């Protein structure tokens, strides 16, 4: 393996933001390549600015480099300007750490977090000089791996990847490394690729698409079955039981150039049981596993010291639900972290309530840049359908609290195209926004509310996986309803996601293997960086679908039946299909479902199936955390069930809410 730097360097004088391609970040490892080490190239199929902050990639990078039998480097999608130069000068995809050719690594592993980057995966594999179709690869080619949330329906990419990892990677990457190490030691002889893939298919959490036969019955999928008896019929996701065992990243990467989230990120918990029915992340990452507050504090202190960052983000799917939140916030700016008050904290993914605003106020110092809430739907009825059980009072008290504490701008996230949505629900979005502005006007004349509107894409492994996505025209009409209504409303601005992009996301999200040819056509037609609006054209996708004789209506807009075989039925996030179906029926009946962290188990299948449990430091829900629990928790509340708790603190959380 030799460095390509001398050939890359002259190209960098001609591209935008060359710092994307040089590595050298604080926290980067000096990789120790050796013939007996398995080399991983961890790839993020989007630009460096978007990919560098990705926590999953940083965690695996560090864990692999700590092993004696592995080494890991990183790569990101080169921007158009550099890609054109690379292709012209015959420079292949390279690692940013030591600028080695991607094709020289043993594994090329992609982290997939959004559907519109799928074509970038094909492009990067091709740029690596590796055949894009797995069937055409030889033993000397890297194994192409997929992981991340989109791996829970990898079928549209099944023809292009060798293996897929379901769930959390901390443990399974070691097991994969060991299989590949033995294969490497055996000399990767001709014909041995099939053998190593078969071995890998036996590793729990690893799905090897080529080991499965797919049968169709007309347009319908009939079955996806293993070709061999030792290949599992269903692949189950991997979950680490206790985050306390995995205090990674220990040496977070500090980027040398501007990136999207240029701050220290510390993950406070994984999983979410609020049960929002549209939310794939909440469904596939169960159960809730909190990181001990003590460890969070250590990670913050060490991370700030090693990166010099001045901002820390406490990440999770709903950070206000973290039992140790107040404890951690109090310590961030104490001497313990050595920061003397100069560190600001950002809390992404906050609940909609006054307690949360209190937290935001506590951490933002004097800054009042903007508050963001996600009510997701415009009426209580529709919020019951999607199980986002925020009352109007929750929202208004949060907004009141925000404006009274000095914020002028609020941003409200909504989805449109949700199941059972009527125009009254859509108009309700503007009604809510208008009422929020009116509340704000009591405090400031500058009060404004921005409505951010996204088209809903039903996702696999959620109760809405059977729902037919709204057509592009219907989404456009609904966006227009909101825009028209907002135009007549002072102080309300609307931003929206392009409904055409939503359609393409729909094709990829619930596609089966036949969509693979569509992906290849879109890519060959130049359709990369599809999540960048300047490069997205729906017509490219429509033409590719038509050329393959596939119907967008059938794949995207059609409601599915209970007995339909879904393309991801052989892949399991632990959720029972009948639980999801019952929850879908409950949604249609407008019944909410409580958060099982603090209420009895309703047997979604994850904890019972995998022998794991919620790891929550406090058996008492956080103050103000009524959403989804169906309880009056204004004062902390009572919990009827016994949880597996970590006896790390004496007193339960549940501070008084002061508004």
């Amino acid at each position, binding site marked *: 393996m030799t460095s390509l730097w001398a050939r890359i360097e002259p190209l960098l004088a001609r591209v935008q933001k060359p710092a994307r391609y*040089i590595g050298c970040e604080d926290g980067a490892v000096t990789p120790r390549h050796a013939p007996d080490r398995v080399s991983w190239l961890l790839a993020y199929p989007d630009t460096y600015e978007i990919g560098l902050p990705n926590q999953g990639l940083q965690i695996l990078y560090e864990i692999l480099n700590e092993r004696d039998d592995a080494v890991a480097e990183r790569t990101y999608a080169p921007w158009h300007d550099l890609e054109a130069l690379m292709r012209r000068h015959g420079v292949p995809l390279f690692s940013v750490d030591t600028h080695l050719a991607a094709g020289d690594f043993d594994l090329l592993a992609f982290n997939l977090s959004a559907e519109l980057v799928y074509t970038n995966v094909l492009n990067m594999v091709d740029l690596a000089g590796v055949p894009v179709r797995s069937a055409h690869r030889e033993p000397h080619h890297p194994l192409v791996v997929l992981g991340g949330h989109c791996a829970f329906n990898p079928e549209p990419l099944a023809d292009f990847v060798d293996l897929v990892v379901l769930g959390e990677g901390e443990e399974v990457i070691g097991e994969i490394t060991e299989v590949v190490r033995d294969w490497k030691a055996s000399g990767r002889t001709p014909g041995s690729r099939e053998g190593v893939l078969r071995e890998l298919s036996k590793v729990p959490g690893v799905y090897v698409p080529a080991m499965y036969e797919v049968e169709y019955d007309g347009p319908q999928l009939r079955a996806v079955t293993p070709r061999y008896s030792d290949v599992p019929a269903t692949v189950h996701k991997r979950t680490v039981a206790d985050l306390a065992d995995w205090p990674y990243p220990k040496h977070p990467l500090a980027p040398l150039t501007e990136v999207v989230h240029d701050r220290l990120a510390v993950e406070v918990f994984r999983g979410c049981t609020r049960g929002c029915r549209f939310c794939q992340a909440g469904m596939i990452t169960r159960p809730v596993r909190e990181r001990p507050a003590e460890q969070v504090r250590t990670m913050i202190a060490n991370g700030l010291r090693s*990166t010099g960052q*001045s901002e820390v983000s406490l990440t999770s799917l709903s950070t206000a639900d973290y039992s140790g939140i107040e404890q951690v916030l109090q310590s961030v700016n104490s001497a313990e972290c050595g920061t003397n008050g100069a560190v600001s904290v950002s809390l992404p993914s906050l609940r909609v309530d006054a307690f949360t605003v209190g937290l935001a106020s506590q951490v933002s110092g004097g800054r009042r840049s903007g508050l963001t809430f996600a009510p997701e739907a415009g009426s209580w009825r529709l919020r019951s359908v999607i199980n986002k059980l925020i009352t109007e009072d929750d929202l208004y008290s949060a907004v009141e609290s925000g404006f009274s504490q000095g914020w002028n701008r609020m941003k409200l996230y909504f989805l449109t195209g949700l199941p059972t949505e009527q125009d009254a629900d859509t108009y309700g979005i503007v009604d809510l926004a208008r009422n929020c502005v009116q509340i704000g006007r009591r405090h400031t004349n500058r009060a404004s509310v921005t409505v951010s509107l996204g088209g809903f894409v039903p996702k696999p492994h959620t109760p809405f996986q059977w729902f037919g996505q709204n057509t592009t025209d219907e989404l456009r009409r609904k966006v227009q309803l909101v825009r028209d209504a907002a135009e007549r409303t002072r102080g309300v601005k609307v931003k929206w996601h392009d409904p055409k992009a939503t359609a393409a996301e729909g094709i990829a999200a619930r596609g089966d293997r036949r969509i693979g040819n569509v992906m290849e056509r879109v890519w060959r037609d130049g359709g990369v960086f599809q999540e960048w609006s300047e490069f997205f054209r729906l017509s490219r996708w429509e033409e590719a679908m038509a050329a393959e004789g596939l119907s967008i209506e059938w794949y995207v807009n059609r409601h599915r039946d209970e007995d339909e075989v879904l393309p991801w039925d052989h892949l399991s996030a632990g959720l029972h299909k009948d639980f999801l179906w019952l929850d879908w029926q409950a949604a249609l009946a407008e019944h909410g479902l409580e958060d099982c962290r603090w209420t009895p188990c309703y047997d979604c299948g994850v904890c019972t199936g995998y022998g794991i449990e919620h790891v929550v430091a406090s058996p008492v829900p956080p103050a103000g955390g009524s959403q989804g629990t169906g309880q009056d928790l204004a004062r902390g509340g009572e919990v009827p069930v016994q949880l597996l708790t970590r006896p790390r603190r004496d007193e339960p959380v549940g501070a008084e809410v002061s508004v």
Partner: protein
Amino acid sequence: MKLRVRYSKLGKIRFTSHGDTARHWERAVRKVGVSMAYSAGFTPRPKMSFGLGLPTGGESLAEYLDMELAEAQHADLDELCTRFASGMPAGYEVTNVVLREPGCPSLQEDVVACSWDFALVGPDRDEAAAAVASVLSQSSLLVERERKGQRSVDDVRAAIEALSVTSVADDPRPHLCAVLAMNGRGLRPTELVGALFPALDPIDVTGRVLRTHQWIERDAVRREIIPARAVATRTPVGCA
């Protein structure tokens, strides 16, 4: 305590921008636990002031910044030099830290000229010498520029104080040694190379751009802002 710091920027890190370098310094100072003075106001910023911008892709042996530490901070300047260096990413070296003279002008105002060393790719030594002689013999040198959509033609001849061809140990490429004045909009390294070799693409021709000195004048005597005290990583330089 007000400090003036000199540092070098060499190697891969040169592909970061001047703005990136400012962030690298802010983070380095926090990493090594030196308390900065902060500006007052809504969003307090550490008091740091950077000198002339270095083009992205350019290297330098002579970069400077001014900074102010928090009050009542006892600091040994040698020790600060070492500490700052330990906090900066690979590719930077901190070569001197001194107390800033009271009342001295800002770096941006003070610098009258910079010396540069360019490695040339393509032209041989004779071609380079001929191009240099040709430019020096002219009384004006027009460069067409575009800035914020406005095209303009400027005479930049006066910005070239000195220009010669030289060579560097172990490097077969001819090098240019240029002293460029900082008056007006100045002259960017690639603009100079473009003017020397109008038939060639200046990006292809400019193999390496290295700022070697920044000059100020005191009592009509030209000198460096502060000398490099610690020895920078030896990088072969054609110009003394």
